[in-house]
């Protein structure tokens, strides 16, 4: 009974307990232990301990043997491998029991499962290892220092390094860090103040490393006995933090300098927080801003408010960039232009969603922009409405833009002119000058130039202009385009040309008057000297025959004088009688008259006449002069025809601008141009030994045609023929 009670007591015991005989066979075992072992009690009772725990160490066996001699032993932390293979950490209490007085009946073994506790310790160590947290301890009585392995690793010393107190301190970086740790330790010893600080050490290998050092004093009998603490590597974290601080500082400096305000808006709480710069931007007190988001909304100008809020809502909803400009009204009523850019951010580990943005003052920019627009508008106004022709010209010489005045000056529509280049309408003689200046402008040798040049009007006539070209640079200094200003000076130029022409006529007439005076004096003197000479001879001549001869010569001479005077009269009348007598003359009609009057002469000489004069050609002329000119040229052709060939005269007329040009070619004797070029039209110049040559016809012809504001040119080759080219003015009503 007593034995059964005992069994019952053992079996139901809430601890792991077993009763063994001297052979270490289970007599009894608590159900709890059986359960832990994963066996039924029948499988355990009667079995040997060593059968159940085959891994039992020799040491334990010896303890069992020792206890069987009647001793009590308790020991901790024995690692036991269960039949299931699971590892268990156990605390053992082993005692013997007496079968009879003084005779050991066996052992009672109690074991306590400390696996969980043990595991926690192991995890803690592992965690420390992973977090690079080492431990340390200073015994204040012996001044001995103890470092855990991790602490040693952090100092980069070997595992068997034993630090002295001074040495431990000397690892801290000289200066602030070392002084700080000494101060903390001293304070801890004197006041018991614990510390938790971050300092820089220099490891045994010379590397600098940030560490977190925690220390706390332990007391024994109210006396500081030791300081224990941890030692943690926070280098990368600390460096990241320092780096972050630097970036933040730089960011702050940057935003402050640039007056960029930064704000964030919490979408959930609808709270807007702003940095100092933003407040400065809105010129609002930090205190008086109230609900910042509402205050911001109020500050936005009414006209912009709905739009900005709409844009912001859109950005939030669609997670896109918020990028806008709006105006705010400041307390003092002034308007500021604000540019704001923002983006919605969602932090990965947070439900919190924020819109973070920046805003800054663009008032000055806006004002400049407005000014620029105004300037552009006023330039455009000037450009379009100027009475001066203006054009913007690209670097390739093409028109970029032209105004009405330019089109009007040149007679083209805008569309027509845009199709052309300035080269197309420039007078060929002015093209090189203009182009070389444009090249200089392009090369930067000059900034602008001004020239007088000629363009061609759409109708073909010349347009005189003063052209000013200025270059326009881009922001980077390169060339953008040119501005040309074209002042039409055609009317001025025409007047100038008229004056010049009048001057030239005057000069020419002076010249011809001088010549004429000399011709007159020469010719008259020739005759007068002859007359006086002949009369001188006559007075003294006695021979009758000779006297008659002299009188005949006197008669001839006075006849020549008469003829000369009539020539001179003719010339003078040509010079005098033209003004106001010019009329429309149908050139073909005049020519037909001439042909009739020389028909007999032509027939006699068997001449061929080819005439190509359009009927509609009407010239501005004196009809009698035209007749005289044509008659003179035609009779000249007959007079100086070649005996070697049949005379052919070609007469052609063509129109060139406002001139009608008649060419008059024969295949006669021709004139040596090299010798006589300058005197062909001179008075009393003859080139052929012909009885009728008086040297007066071409002189009169030239005078007549010039009197009608035309001109005559000649080209000739000896024994080939002569071509006279007559320039008449086309008749204008």
């Amino acid at each position: 009974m007593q034995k059964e009670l005992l069994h019952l007591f053992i079996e139901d015991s809430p601890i792991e307990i077993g009763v063994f005989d001297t052979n270490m066979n289970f007599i009894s075992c608590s159900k709890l232990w059986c359960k832990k072992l994963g066996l039924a009690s029948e499988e355990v009772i009667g079995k040997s301990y060593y059968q159940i725990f085959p891994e039992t160490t020799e040491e334990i066996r010896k303890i069992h043997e020792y206890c069987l001699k009647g001793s009590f032993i308790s020991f901790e932390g024995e690692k036991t491998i269960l039949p299931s293979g699971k590892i268990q950490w156990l605390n053992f209490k082993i005692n013997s029991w007496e079968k009879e007085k003084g005779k050991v009946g066996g052992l009672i073994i109690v074991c306590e499962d400390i696996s969980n506790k043990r595991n926690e310790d192991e995890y803690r160590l592992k965690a420390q290892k992973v977090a690079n947290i080492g431990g340390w301890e200073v015994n204040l009585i012996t001044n001995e220092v103890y470092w855990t392995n991790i602490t040693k690793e952090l100092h980069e010393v070997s595992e068997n390094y034993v630090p002295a107190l001074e040495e431990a301190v000397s690892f801290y970086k000289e200066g602030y860090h070392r002084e700080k740790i000494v101060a903390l330790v001293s304070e801890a010893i004197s006041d018991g103040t614990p510390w938790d600080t971050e300092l820089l050490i220099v490891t045994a290998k010379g590397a600098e490393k940030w560490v977190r050092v925690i220390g706390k004093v332990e007391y024994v009998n109210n006396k500081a006995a030791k300081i224990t603490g941890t030692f943690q590597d926070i280098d990368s974290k600390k460096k990241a933090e320092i780096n972050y601080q630097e970036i933040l500082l730089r960011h702050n400096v940057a935003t402050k300098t640039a007056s960029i305000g930064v704000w964030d808006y919490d979408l959930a709480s609808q709270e807007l927080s702003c940095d100092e710069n933003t407040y400065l931007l809105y010129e609002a007190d930090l205190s008086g801003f109230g609900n910042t988001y509402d205050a911001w909304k109020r500050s936005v100008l009414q006209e912009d408010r709905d739009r900005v809020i709409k844009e912001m809502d859109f950005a939030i909803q669609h997670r896109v960039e918020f990028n806008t400009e709006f105006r705010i009204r400041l307390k003092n009523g002034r308007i500021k232009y604000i540019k704001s850019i923002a983006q919605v951010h969602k932090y990965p580990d947070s439900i919190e969603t924020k819109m973070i943005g920046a805003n800054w003052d663009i008032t000055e920019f806006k004002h400049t922009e407005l000014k620029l627009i105004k300037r552009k508008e006023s330039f455009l106004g000037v450009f379009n409405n100027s009475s001066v022709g203006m054009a913007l010209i690209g670097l390739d010489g093409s028109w970029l833009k032209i105004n009405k005045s330019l089109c009007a000056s040149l007679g083209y529509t805008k569309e027509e002119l845009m199709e052309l280049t300035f080269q197309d309408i420039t007078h060929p003689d002015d093209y090189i000058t203009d182009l070389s200046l444009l090249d200089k402008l392009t090369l930067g040798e000059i900034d602008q130039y001004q020239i007088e040049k000629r363009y061609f009007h759409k109708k073909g006539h010349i347009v005189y202009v003063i052209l000013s070209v200025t270059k326009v640079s881009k922001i980077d200094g390169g060339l953008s385009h040119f501005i040309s200003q074209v002042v039409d000076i055609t009317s001025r130029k025409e007047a100038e040309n008229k004056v010049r022409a009048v001057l030239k006529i005057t000069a020419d007439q002076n010249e011809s008057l001088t010549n004429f005076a000399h011709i007159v004096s020469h010719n008259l003197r020739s005759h007068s000297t002859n007359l006086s000479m002949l009369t001188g001879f006559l007075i003294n001549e006695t021979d009758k025959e000779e006297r008659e001869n002299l009188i005949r010569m006197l008669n001839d001479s006075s006849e020549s004088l008469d003829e000369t005077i009539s020539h001179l009269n003719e010339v003078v009348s040509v010079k005098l009688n033209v003004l106001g007598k010019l009329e429309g003359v149908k050139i073909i009609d005049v020519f037909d008259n001439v042909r009739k009057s020389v028909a007999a002469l032509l027939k006699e000489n068997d001449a061929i006449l080819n005439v190509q004069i359009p009927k509609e050609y009407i010239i501005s002329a004196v009809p009698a002069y035209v007749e005289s000119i044509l008659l003179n040229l035609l009779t000249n052709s007959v007079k100086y025809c070649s005996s070697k060939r049949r005379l052919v005269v070609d007469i052609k007329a063509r129109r060139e601008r406002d001139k009608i040009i008649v060419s008059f070619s024969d295949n006669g004797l021709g004139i040596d141009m090299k010798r006589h070029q300058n005197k062909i039209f001179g008075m009393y110049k003859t080139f052929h030994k012909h009885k009728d040559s008086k040297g007066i016809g071409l002189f009169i012809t030239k005078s007549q045609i010039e009197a009608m504001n035309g001109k005559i040119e000649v080209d000739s080759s000896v024994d080939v023929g002569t071509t006279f080219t007559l320039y008449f003015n086309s008749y204008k009503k």
Partner: protein
Amino acid sequence: MNKIHSACIIDDDPIFVYGTKRIMKDVDFCEEIHVFENGLDAIEELNRLRVAKEKLPKLIFLDLNMPIMNGWEFLDDFQKIPRHIREGVIIYIISSSIDPRDIERVKTYDIVSDYILKPVTPKDLQNLLEELAE
């Protein structure tokens, strides 16, 4: 006074030629007188004489205004005759022109000795003979 061996008149005015020839005879100016109506006839004759290696005339009276080839052109062509051949030929311009431009132009020709304004008087010829004698 030594009279000149041969003189030559280049002028297209027959009355002037007649008068001059007559004065020359009166003052016993020269042995031979050649007359040409224009410069071309004269230069052709001079060239003929040159080729024939005959003597050129000692004196030439040259008019300026003539048809075909005037006095200026004659001077230009005369200068083309090699210097050693034309050396010793004395040229006088005889003209009615009082145009200063003509007188200036005459000065540019080294081969021209002087400019005599028409008409030629017996005094002119006597002075000339005196000059030649010196």
